[in-house]
């Protein structure tokens, strides 16, 4: 069996109540996985533990076989994280931001320069490459952060609401990019409240409620589980997350 891109076992995090409760996930390489759930279900907490921003109370995380708790730097080299609020420096230009990211992940200068140009051109930011991020709109900031996340060519891409703030054309472009990356072998895990996005993109979908994985599978498997034949993911999601269904 090929090595898993992400293996999460018994992941647990408590704040006042359990935010994530004995969560198990297994993502093979190249899979596009959507983690869905109502507000406060524990999606972002799960992602923040996987990328090393939050300490789990219990459980293990392995990224391409690397124990992320024992060797966090090794795991971080393979991972990129794109939160819903872009992690940018207002006083740096888009190009300087990418130079900084390339430095942090120690990407070869020539490779980084080529990739940065490709990404900025593709994201329609090339003309604004020397403008400071403080002058950008919300969508432009999100695109700059996305370019930063992709610059070091991560093998595991973790995105929290990646389409927030993007216009329709750019959202479409980002969706196509995520599919293309997944086809090339990058494992993509994302959360979204726009269920059509998950329906269109994700090979597998996990539904998390109150920190517990309620259901997981392909759209067909979830339809079968919910007892709704050809329904949309929205209907399946609402049926499965109804209090009386749990």
């Amino acid at each position, binding site marked *: 069996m090929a090595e898993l891109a992400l293996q999460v076992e018994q992941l647990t995090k408590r704040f006042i109540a359990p935010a994530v409760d004995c969560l198990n996930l297994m993502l093979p390489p190249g899979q596009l996985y959507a983690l869905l759930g109502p507000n406060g279900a524990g999606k972002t907490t799960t992602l923040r533990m996987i*990328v*090393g*921003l*939050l*300490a*789990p*109370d*219990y459980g293990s995380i392995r990224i391409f076989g690397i124990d*992320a*708790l024992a060797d*966090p*730097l*090794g795991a*971080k*080299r393979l*991972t*990129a*994280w794109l*939160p819903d609020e872009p*992690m*940018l*420096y*207002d*006083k*740096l*230009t888009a*190009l*300087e931001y990418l*130079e*900084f*990211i*390339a*430095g*942090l*992940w*120690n990407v070869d*200068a020539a490779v*980084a*320069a080529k990739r*940065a*140009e490709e990404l900025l051109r593709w994201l329609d930011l090339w003309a*604004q*490459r*020397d*403008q*400071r991020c403080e*002058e*950008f*709109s919300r969508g*432009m900031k999100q695109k700059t952060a996305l370019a*930063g996340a992709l610059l070091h060519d991560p093998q595991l891409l973790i995105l929290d609401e990646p389409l927030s703030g993007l216009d329709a054309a750019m959202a479409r472009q980002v969706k196509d990019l995520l599919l293309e990356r997944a086809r090339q072998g990058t494992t993509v895990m994302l959360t979204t409240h726009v269920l059509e996005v998950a329906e269109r993109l994700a090979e597998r979908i996990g539904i998390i409620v109150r920190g517990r994985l309620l259901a997981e599978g392909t759209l067909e498997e979830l339809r079968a589980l919910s007892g709704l034949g050809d329904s949309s993911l929205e209907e399946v999601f609402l049926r499965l997350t109804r209090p009386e269904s749990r």
Partner: protein
Amino acid sequence: MRFAPGSVPWLIRHELRLLSRASGRLSWWMLLIVVLALIIAVAVAGAPIAALLAHPHLGTHPLAVFGADIAIVLLFGIMFAQALLLSVQAFYIRGDLDLLLSSPLPPRRLVLVRSGAIACSVAALFWLLAAPVVAATVVRGHLAIIGVLPLIAAVALAATSAGLVVAMVLFATLGPRRARTVSQLLGPAVVGGIILLAQIPQFLPHHGAWVARWVETAVRLGWFGPHSVLAWPVRAACGVPVPMLGITAACSVLFLATAYAAAPLFPNYAARATVAVGGRARHRPWRPLRGGVRSVLIRKELRLIARDPLLLSQILLQLVYLIPLAVALATQDLTDRHMFIMVCVGLLIVMAGGAASSLTWVTLSAEDAPDLLRCAPLTHGAAERAKLTAALIPLTGFLVPVAVLGVFSSWAAMIAALGAAASALSNALIQLWYAKPMARGAFRRRVQRALLPSLGGMLVTFGWVGVAAAACSATAATELAAVLLAVVPLGALGLLWLGRHRSERPLYISRWSHEPSRHA
């Protein structure tokens, strides 16, 4: 009390509520410290000044009139600098601005209340400073001194009017982005300029005796006589009704007229401030940040510091505030060369400590994207060391005044260099131990949010000044004293180290990945 929704008092209550919650709630011990500080201020500073103010002929004495006029000009200058900064920020700080501008409230009402809030912010500090003196004077039976408080309010209204006008002119002529940068530099420059100008007479021959001669002439000509308009400020401060009401009414009318005139422009400028306003950027090639993660982080930090004029001006202003103190000390007797050199050494040590503390706070506590660094493959220690290095690099600028000092005394220069280095390093370490995530915009509020490290830093800095002062004398006895005195800063540093954040390292790399807690 209930006010009609949308009315001016209703909006004022809304502003005050937001203002009161902006700085967080005071803990009981902070409240205790404030009350104790006020009592001490009344006892130490308030009482002697109150005795002076209680003089029966204060309001009519020409020198008092002249002094009050100068004080009003200085007060206006300082308040104007603050008001200008706040006025330009009012266009940028969104908060509830978009909500209010999109509501069916007349813009004039909104601008009036916003400008009033600026005037209150500007006056608040000076009310606080005046409170001990006023309280002590009232206790001595001179109730009329309460006139100082409306006088401060009147000057704040006038300064806010001027700030609003200049902000509008800057916006109209330079555009939003440059207006913000210029206001950030202009405000502190005005304050710094006033402080430095005030020191000029100290350096003039005979300590500015010509100023005294000019004042005498002006007094003889009756310019500062009791019935002159120039006597109004001091008489208003002494509670004489006509000048007090006259000045307050004139400043209020000026303020209302300015707010009324500014109202139609305000929504337009506020809208322009939100739009991307970058000029034609010069395109430059890819410049890889070489030299490893440490070098990458250092260059990033230096770049961010260099590009934040507000932050830089605030840091420099802190240093400028120290100059009058040093000049006052040094010019007690300039013929005493030893005293002059000691003051220079002390000033350099205090300045280096203050600058190190500010810059380390910027690099460590005010990291814009902490999650980015925590996600990156670099260790906690590497990030901390790089950020500390970046904060200390600009302090190499202190080598210039140290070299100048070396012309007078090489021993003193060496002491100054060592003292400044010790002070800078100590303050940087204290900031590291007590790092607390904050936004860069909170620079001016960082002291009240982290009182212990701020006070600790001051104690350690003055400890090093004491050590340097003893060492400067270069006698066997004082050198021994210097060694013994070093116990004070080192001891304080040790105590601060013991009380440092042990469990929480919130900024860069969470410790969990190295020390996971795996309790079921």
